[in-house]
């Protein structure tokens, strides 16, 4: 009985959603309707076009998307070009060398280790945002990976269905309603804004203070640990300068960064 009620309510909800949104049916309506003698299904016929074909929605949306608060644009663009060069001439060659001299399992061990260390600020920020379920999950990850995963060299938690979730202090600030502030291109680190750059500093000092697995203490004596961490960070970041292959890459990166942060904060 309960089951049936559930099904009925689910169906109703679906129907309501369909009625409210009046979306097109899930699978194509094009089939069999207008297949011409060549077998062409004329996909565009299924669409409802604006009658005058003169709407300016693409232009309107895109122009609106270009208004990101960026008072330091000139400096940011210079830093963007500096980062681009640094990436091509220093960072990526080093990462390639790292890829060349280490076997795959070493690299994934290094990535897992630093990711596990990074779960400490993730936990702390997730607690600050009162995300109960997520805090539990991150705690479970830390416990599992630090013990069974031997100090985080393996990541058994992900295999058990606890995926890595990142929360930083910039997100925490955003959660409490702190605005983005001006867009910033941080040397070497890449796109950011005033709020998130501040958040980065807080996360870094918190990590030093907690000194989880002695990483902070060891890296202050042995800068090579920091260097390895930086290389691993670049190794695991798939973004490449120039990958958008557009004269307007700066604008596009700026928009995507801003929206991605909004999404991370809302979620």
């Amino acid at each position, binding site marked *: 009985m309960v089951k049936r009620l559930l099904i009925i309510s689910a169906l109703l909800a679906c129907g309501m*959603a369909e009625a409210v*949104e*009046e*979306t*097109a049916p*899930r*699978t*194509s309506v*094009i*089939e069999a309707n207008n*297949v*011409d*003698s*060549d*077998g*062409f*299904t004329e*996909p*565009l016929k*299924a*669409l*409802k*076009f*604006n009658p005058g*074909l*003169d*709407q300016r*929605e*693409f*232009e309107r*949306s*895109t*122009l609106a*998307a*270009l208004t990101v608060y960026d008072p330091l*644009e*000139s*400096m940011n*663009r*210079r830093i963007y*070009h500096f980062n*681009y060069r640094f990436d*091509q001439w220093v960072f990526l060659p080093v990462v390639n060398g790292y*890829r060349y001299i280490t076997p*795959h399992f070493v690299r994934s061990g290094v990535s897992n280790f630093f990711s596990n260390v990074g779960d400490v600020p993730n936990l702390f920020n997730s607690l600050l945002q009162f995300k109960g*379920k*997520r805090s539990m999950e991150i705690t479970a990850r830390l416990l599992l990976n630090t013990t069974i995963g031997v100090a985080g060299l393996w990541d058994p938690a992900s295999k058990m269905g606890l*995926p890595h979730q990142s929360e930083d202090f910039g997100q925490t600030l955003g959660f409490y309603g702190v605005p983005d502030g001006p867009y910033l291109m941080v040397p070497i680190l890449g796109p950011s804004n005033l709020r998130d750059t501040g958040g980065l500093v807080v996360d870094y000092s918190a990590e030093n203070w907690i000194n989880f697995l002695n990483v902070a203490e060891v890296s202050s004596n042995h800068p090579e640990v920091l260097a390895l961490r930086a290389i691993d960070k670049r190794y695991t970041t798939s973004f490449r*300068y*120039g*990958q958008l*292959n*557009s*004269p*307007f890459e700066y*604008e596009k990166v700026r928009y995507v960064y801003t*929206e991605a942060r*909004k*999404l991370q904060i809302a*979620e």
Partner: protein
Amino acid sequence: MLRSLRLAALLGGLISSACAWAQTIDAASYGYPLTNPFEATIATTPPELRPELPSDDDITQSDYSLNLRPERAFTLPDNFWPVKKLKYRLARQDHEAPLMFLIAGTGAPYSSSINEYLKKLYYKAGYHVVQLSSPTSFDFITAASRYATPGVTKEDAEDLYRVMQGVRAQHPRLPVSEYYLSGYSLGALDAAFVSHLDETRRSFNFKRVLLLNPPVNLYTSISNLDKLVQTEVKGVNNSTTFYELVLNKLTRYFQQKGYIDLNDALLYDFQQSRQHLSNEQMAMVIGTSFRFSAADIAFTSDLINRRGLIIPPKYPITEGSSLTPFFKRALQCDFDCYLTEQVIPMWRARTDGGSLLQLVDQVSLYALKDYLQQSPKIAVMHNADDVILGPGDLGFLRSAFGERLTLYPHGGHCGNLNYRVNSDDMLEFFRG
């Protein structure tokens, strides 16, 4: 022997009468899950139906650059320093092997996701692979294009041919047994023209050429793409722009899912969720991405040729100067605008050319009809629901390619390229 021949003839006759020569694959036996062409175009194949591919770590590959237009180093503004040389990617086998050239689609660089996918597919099958940018991509226009006004396919093919020759000259010790060529979308049209050019220049003697989802009539294709941003989208109003609408949906999707997970299956999974986009919204997304390509092409071509339509000639640009005002202007130019404002005037001035119709005939597959009919080495794979086609285009493909046309019932524009059935067919074609 004679009997088997007769049997073959009979079989051939039966097949040909059944489906007018082309290999038409019916939807039931094809089994591609995305029957909606827009969904297929955006989400492509669900990961579990893709072929198994090697990871980047298992491929010996590097990026190289060619200095084909050294004068551009002096004429281009400072902040275009990364595109003064043309980059390409070469994946090499450690033994003698055939070499495959791949040409990217509209506006796409050599490292586009479809090029990367095709590279992995062919590399695994034992080919050296060279990935090339599309002649319409930003880096190609600045670094390799003689007239920097892509769209006249014959000229684009000549530029590409030079690039290919440059690539070969840069790797004299690469043991290559024979050359193959493939391209997708606009790159497929380019590949057909490159192959035609190769018949007279004979640098490569391509053994086989495969066109994946080429435009047939280039003008139909760009009109279709321009039109995609004219759909009536529900939910767009004075306070919500189209991007905000899509981003809101994405945010709600992640909230319902509980965490952000960016992976191959994301778009497919998103379309299965409550927040899925309608046909009109998906069309708008596809149209938007092509409009960005159109803006890049219009701006770059105008900048290099100093036409003064978007950016004033001699406008001082340094690494710190904002390009946003020009971006805003370029955004208002769609493919049709680029064609009428930049391609046609240049084409008329250079070739004493005539009307738009003549140009369309010259730059589309029509120009190569006789060649395509007589060249058994060229084949084409296309979809019956591809958004870049118009009525009659498939008829042209049937008459030009005959049984060398493979027509899939679904897949939208290039959405089924990474479906296992398609990848098997592609490898099979090159295997011969």
